[in-house]
C-alpha cells in the first residue's frame, strides 16, 4: 500500500512537470525562440543537446534486444521486452526535441512535400521514423500470443540492429559533415556516436531494469545485470579510445584543431569535457573492470549513473565548443539577433559564441524527460507480465537529472 502511494505521488510529480513543460513550450511558440538562450552566434543549444542525448539513450535497449536474436544470446532475450520499451520511449523524446527546436513548426510538412535528399537532417528524419516503426513492430511481435510471433521477432531483429547503428550515424553526420565547424568535421563522429549511444543506452537500461526489479513488476537476475555491466565496461573503453584518437588528431598539428581543443580543455566548455573524461569514462570503467565490483549492484548502479551523466556532458561540449570561435573574426563580430540585441547598441554584437539555457528551455526539457518517464512506466505496466506497482520512474528521472 505504501509503495502504491509513493508510486502515485511520483506519477503525479511527473505529470505536473510534463504539464509545466507543455506550458513553457506554448509560451515559446507564442513568443518565438527568442525566449531561449540561443543566438546567431550559437544557433543550437539545450534542445539539440537533448536530441543527441536521447537518440543515444534509445540505442542500448534495441541493440541488446536485437543482439539477443541475431547473435543468439539467450540471456538477453529475457530483458528484450523492457529494453525495447525503453528504446521506443527514448526515440520519441529525441523526435520531440527536434520539433521543439524548430522556429517554423507550422511549415514542417515541407520536409515531406519538398525534401532535399542531400540534407543530413532529412536523412535523420527518415531513419528515426524507420527506427520508431521497427521498435513498434518489435513490441507488437514480442507481446503477440499468436503462433510464429517468435520467428517474426527474429526477422525484425535482423533489420533492427543495422537501423540502430544507422540512426546514430546519421545523427552524427548532422554535425560531422559540417566542414565549417572545427571540432565537428571528423570521420570519427559516426563511430563515436554509435559507441556513446551504446554505453549511455546500456547504462540507462541497467538502471531501468534495477528500477523494475525494485518495483517487483519485472525480475532481472543479478547475474544478467552483472553480465550487462561487463558489456558496459567494454563500451566505455571503446568510447574513451575514440575520444582519445580524436583529441590527439586535433592537438598534434598545433593548428586550428588545437585552438578548438584549448576551448574544450581549458576554455568555456572545459568543465563539461573534464566531467565526461573523469566521471563519465575513467571512474565507471575503473569500477566495472573488476568482476567483483560487477556483482555489487550498488556499484553497478553508481557506475551507470556516471556513464549516463558523462555522455550528457559529452553532448554539451561536442555541440557548444564548435560555436565558440568565428571563422571570419574581427570586431564587432556577429549580430546576435536576440531579444537583448533588438534593443540596439553594443549588446547587439559578439566576438565569440556564448550560450546558457533560459528557464523556458530547462522547463521544456524537464517536461519532455518527465513525459518519457511517464510513458515508460505506463508501457511497462501494460506490456510487462507481472503485478505490483512500480517505482522505476523515480530512478529514470534521477538518472536524467544527474
Amino acid at each position: 500500500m505504501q509503495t502504491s502511494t509513493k508510486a502515485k505521488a511520483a506519477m503525479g510529480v511527473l505529470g505536473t512537470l510534463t504539464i509545466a513543460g507543455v506550458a513553457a513550450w506554448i509560451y515559446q511558440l507564442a513568443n518565438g525562440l527568442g525566449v531561449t538562450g540561443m543566438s546567431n552566434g550559437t544557433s543550437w543549444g539545450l534542445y539539440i543537446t537533448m536530441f543527441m542525448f536521447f537518440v543515444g539513450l534509445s540505442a542500448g535497449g534495441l541493440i541488446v534486444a536485437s543482439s539477443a536474436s541475431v547473435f543468439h544470446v539467450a540471456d538477453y532475450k529475457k530483458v528484450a521486452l523492457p529494453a525495447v520499451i525503453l528504446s521506443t520511449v527514448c526515440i520519441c523524446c529525441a523526435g520531440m526535441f527536434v520539433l521543439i527546436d524548430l522556429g517554423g513548426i507550422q511549415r514542417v510538412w515541407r520536409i515531406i512535400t519538398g525534401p532535399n535528399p542531400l540534407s543530413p537532417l532529412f536523412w535523420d528524419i527518415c531513419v528515426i521514423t524507420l527506427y520508431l516503426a521497427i521498435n513498434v513492430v518489435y513490441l507488437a511481435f514480442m507481446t503477440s500470443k499468436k503462433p510464429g510471433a517468435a520467428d517474426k521477432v527474429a526477422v525484425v531483429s535482423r533489420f533492427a540492429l543495422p537501423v540502430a547503428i544507422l540512426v546514430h550515424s546519421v545523427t552524427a553526420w548532422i554535425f560531422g559533415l559540417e566542414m565549417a565547424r572545427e571540432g565537428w568535421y571528423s570521420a570519427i563522429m559516426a563511430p563515436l556516436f554509435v559507441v556513446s549511444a551504446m554505453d549511455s543506452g546500456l547504462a540507462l537500461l541497467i538502471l531501468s531494469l534495477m528500477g523494475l526489479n525494485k518495483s517487483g513488476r519485472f525480475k532481472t537476475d543479478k547475474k544478467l545485470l552483472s553480465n550487462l555491466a561487463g558489456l558496459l565496461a567494454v563500451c566505455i573503453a571503446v568510447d574513451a579510445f575514440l575520444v582519445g584518437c580524436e583529441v590527439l588528431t586535433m592537438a598534434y598539428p598545433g593548428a586550428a584543431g588545437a585552438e578548438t581543443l584549448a576551448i574544450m580543455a581549458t576554455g568555456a566548455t572545459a568543465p563539461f569535457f573534464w566531467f565526461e573524461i573523469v566521471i563519465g569514462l575513467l571512474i565507471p570503467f575503473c569500477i566495472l573492470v573488476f568482476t567483483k565490483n560487477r556483482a555489487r549492484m550498488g556499484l553497478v548502479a553508481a557506475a551507470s549513473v556516471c556513464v549516463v551523466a558523462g555522455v550528457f556532458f559529452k553532448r554539451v561540449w561536442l555541440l557548444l565548443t564548435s560555436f565558440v570561435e568565428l571563422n571570419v573574426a574581427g570586431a564587432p563580430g556577429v549580430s546576435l539577433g536576440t531579444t537583448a540585441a533588438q534593443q540596439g547598441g553594443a549588446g547587439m554584437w559578439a566576438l565569440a559564441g556564448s550560450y546558457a539555457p533560459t528557464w523556458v528551455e530547462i522547463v521544456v526539457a524537464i517536461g519532455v524527460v518527465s513525459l518519457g518517464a511517464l510513458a515508460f512506466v505506463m508501457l511497462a505496466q501494460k506490456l510487462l507480465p507481472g503485478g505490483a506497482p512500480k517505482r522505476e520512474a523515480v530512478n529514470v528521472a534521477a538518472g536524467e537529472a544527474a
Partner: protein
Amino acid sequence: MTRLAIAINLDRCTGCNTCAMACKMQNNVPMGMAWNRVLNEDCEFEVGVQGTYPHVSRSHLPVACQHCENPACLRVCPTGATYKDDKGRVEIDYEKCIGCRMCMAACPYNARVFNWNEPVRDPDFNYGDKDVPVRGKGVVEKCTLCKERTDRGDEPMCVKCCLAKARIFGDLDDPESEVSRVVRERNATALLPEQGTRPQVRYFN
C-alpha cells in the same frame, strides 16, 4: 549562365559602414541583426587597431553572404528553402523555411541571421524597398544580393551607396564585365578558400 557577383577593393574601403546601413534600409532588416557587416580585422574593438603604437594599422573587411558556387548552406537545408537561382544568387524561400538552422551551422562565414523573435523595427514601420518580402519570426534570412534591385537591372544597394567606390557588381560569366576583369587582372581572392565553397564575392587590393 549568369553568376552575379561583387568584387570589393579592400584598399578603397574606409570602414565607414555605409554599405551596412544601406543594406539594412533597402532590405528592411530588423533591429538586432545585420545582413552586411564591416569587420575591423584582428581587433577586439570596432574602433581598434592592429599592432602597438606607433606601429599600427587598420584593415576593414565587409562580410555578407558570399553567394558561393558550392554553398554549404544549400546542401544541408532539409526543405530546399535555400536555393541557387538562375542568376547565380543564393536565395531563401521564406515559405519553405522551417527554422531548423542547419544552414547557420553550415555557413563558414556566419552570414545568416535568424528571426528569434517577432521582428522589431525602429522606426516602427517597414522601411525597406516595397518589393522586399517582410519576414516573420522563425525564419532565417541573409543578403539576397538585393534580388529585387538586381532583377530590375539595378546594382545592389551596398554597391550603389559605397562612398569610396570600393564595390564592383557584375556577372562573372561575362568575360567583358568589369567584375570579371578585376577578378582576372587583380588576383581577387575569396574568403576561406580552404572551405571549398567557391564564393562569388571576391576581395582584391
